């Protein structure tokens, strides 16, 4: 082989290697000042349109800036954003659900402190106080409350209740009597898809909160109490009792909420009740208008032996808080972009889609939403979803153990112990 040929091949190799590194290098940057990347998870119903129009309004005001909207399905988003944060390739604006993960982002300096933007022109007064409170961590505002007020409640099939002469239950005992009547007539009382885990957690939260109020959870989280509190043990025991009585559909632990496997049972009239967040209203309207016409809601009943206030609501006042990434090259414009999501047009769009935007003075024409908003306004306090208030590590333990309570593979006490151990380990680490 001639020297010339060797040199040629050598050069080729260097060029090839250079290409590889160049490709790696250009991807790692967080976009330029003239383009903004925003991630959203509103992939269903009218969601995508609402976002596209908001982005178009922003582009009309800022013709020189290219705004890129990426829509990602809920559970996939959680994975994608975690990977993006870990590798430092974060979009300019993205969402979280407040609570644990948002605190992690804030602690790490992954997101920008928005307090000064929110205080400018009293912009923050536009939002519900509780929503701002939820976006606040260590005295600073980290997110813009964007999406709906979302709380969970009991959705039910009014037609089935009427057919079997069941009145809306106001106590747990009445609820159980209703379940027994439904069961006797071959109707599954509750439809549940618990592969997703946070779905079953809603039942657990309601039972625990009606039994002991919000205080046991607050105490367990800050370490002054524990997850072995009777309220949590009771919730677990009640759930296992309900599972044994057949109050849930077959195979709930293997069904997937995101694929609609629980909603299907409800739409077909084979199950009568569904405990779910208020977003279910909009799903029902688009997926099964026939069912939506028979749909009603009621407050999760009072616990006769419990000390919890029956008006306490579980959920978030504004879920989907939009953050500006600290890696963004144009943070002011990124904030402007997210504020376009909740301008007057955005609010009108949200109402049209059957959602409750977290702003003051909205008028709701949808009867179910009006009723839900009434529940929220009557609530003395709001219990944020457990899996969002807890640190991600402990939240996962809560979700897995509550799934095991449902599956009967873990006793309520053993589950409580595991959760307590995880929380204690977390507090020690902090």
């Amino acid at each position: 082989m001639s020297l010339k040929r060797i040199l040629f091949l050598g050069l080729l190799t260097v060029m090839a290697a250079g290409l590889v590194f160049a490709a790696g290098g250009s991807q790692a940057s967080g976009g330029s000042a003239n383009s903004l990347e925003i991630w959203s998870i509103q992939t269903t119903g009218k969601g995508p349109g609402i976002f596209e129009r908001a982005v178009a309004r922003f582009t009309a005001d800022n013709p020189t800036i290219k705004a890129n909207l990426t829509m990602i399905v809920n559970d996939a988003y959680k994975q994608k954003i975690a990977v993006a944060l870990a590798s430092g390739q974060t979009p300019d604006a993205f969402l979280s659900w407040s609570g644990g993960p948002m605190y992690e982002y804030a602690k790490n300096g992954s997101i920008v402190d928005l307090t000064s933007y929110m205080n400018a022109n009293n912009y923050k007064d536009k939002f519900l106080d509780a929503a701002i409170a939820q976006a606040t961590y260590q005295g600073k505002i980290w997110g813009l409350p964007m999406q709906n007020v979302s709380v969970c409640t009991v959705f039910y099939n009014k037609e089935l209740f009427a057919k079997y002469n069941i009145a809306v239950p106001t106590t747990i005992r009445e609820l159980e009597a209703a379940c027994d009547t439904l069961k006797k007539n071959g109707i599954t009382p509750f439809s549940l898809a618990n592969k997703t885990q946070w779905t079953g957690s809603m039942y657990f939260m309601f039972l625990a909160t009606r039994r002991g109020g919000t205080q046991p959870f607050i105490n367990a989280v800050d370490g002054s109490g524990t997850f072995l509190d009777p309220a949590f043990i009771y919730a677990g025991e009640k759930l296992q009792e309900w599972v044994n009585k057949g109050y849930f559909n077959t195979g709930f632990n293997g069904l997937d909420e995101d694929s609609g496997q629980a909603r299907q049972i409800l739409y077909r009239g084979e199950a009568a009740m569904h405990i779910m967040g208020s977003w279910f209203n909009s799903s029902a309207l688009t997926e099964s208008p026939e069912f939506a016409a028979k749909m009603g809601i009621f407050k999760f009943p009072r616990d006769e032996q419990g000390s919890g206030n029956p008006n306490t609501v579980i959920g978030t006042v504004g879920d989907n808080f939009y953050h500006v990434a600290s890696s963004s090259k144009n943070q002011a414009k990124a904030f402007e972009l997210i504020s376009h999501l909740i301008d007057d047009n955005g609010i009108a769009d949200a109402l049209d889609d059957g959602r409750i935007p977290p702003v003051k003075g909205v008028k709701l024409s949808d009867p179910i939403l009006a009723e839900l908003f009434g529940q929220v306004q009557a609530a003395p306090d709001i219990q944020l979803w457990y899996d969002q208030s807890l640190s991600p590590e402990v939240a996962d333990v809560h979700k897995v153990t509550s799934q095991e309570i449902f599956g009967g593979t873990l006793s309520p006490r053993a589950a409580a112990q595991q959760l307590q151990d995880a929380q204690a380990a977390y507090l020690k680490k902090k």
Partner: protein
Amino acid sequence: MAGSKMVSLRSARQHSIRIAAAVFLLPALLFLIVYVAYPIVESFITSTMAWNGMGRKRVFTGAENWINLAKDINFWRAFGNNVKIMFLSLVFQVPFAMALATFLDVTERRGAVFKVVWFIPYLISSVAIGVLFKYTLDANYGVIASISKLFGGGGVDLLGNPRIALYTVIGVVCWQYIPFYMVLYLAAYGTIPVELYEAASIDGATRSQYFWRVSLPLLRPTIVSGMTLSIIGSLKYFDLIFVMTGGGPGVSTELMATYMYKLSFVRYNMGYGATVASGMFILITLVALIVISTLNRKTEL
């Protein structure tokens, strides 16, 4: 004189061949270092840190993660699930794939349509199979539940029952991978010379003797490599199971890889996640070494 000149010519030639070989290998070597060696080293480094996976704050904690790993019941339970999958995959996949390949070899062209049909599962991506089976096995409206209801039974819960879920998942894994081994064995059948069968038939061999005395011994090296692939594959399994059950209900279908994923990206505990990944690396390497050395020894006998 002429001889010594020849030698120096040959050595000069060998020298230039070596340089050329090095030049050709360099790109591959670079890729290996960047995409294989470096990540492995990096996860071992991360495994000695407390790191949440975000930002630059990494704290060196020495062997703490490794001590936790050794005591972690969930990790060993996940390893146990991997071993179950490994064992049952071997038990079902090898004979099944062998039977299908034998059928195709015997029927030759007449069986060509089956060759395509049976290979289809392997062509579908794991994630698509996971989604497909999530609906197929739906406890209320899936295929099996519907058949059961047709005969007056109730729903059939295959993915949500913690005692059954792992076996259901293994069944789907087998469904997906049997075609791969089938093709492997079929290819090996193609290498068996026809003369051997002719000789056997002259010796008066029966049909079953064809298989046991001629085909099987000659297929042995292929069976060994198929088993090795299956064992290593079972230990690092992830995608299909993650989609179908997410490791649940509870921890009943949790595998080492799904556990690692959850630690790193759901619980934001990247340091410990890296420890699990490194632990997996060590375990899989050990198992692979043992399997390869013992199986190879057997074939030599």
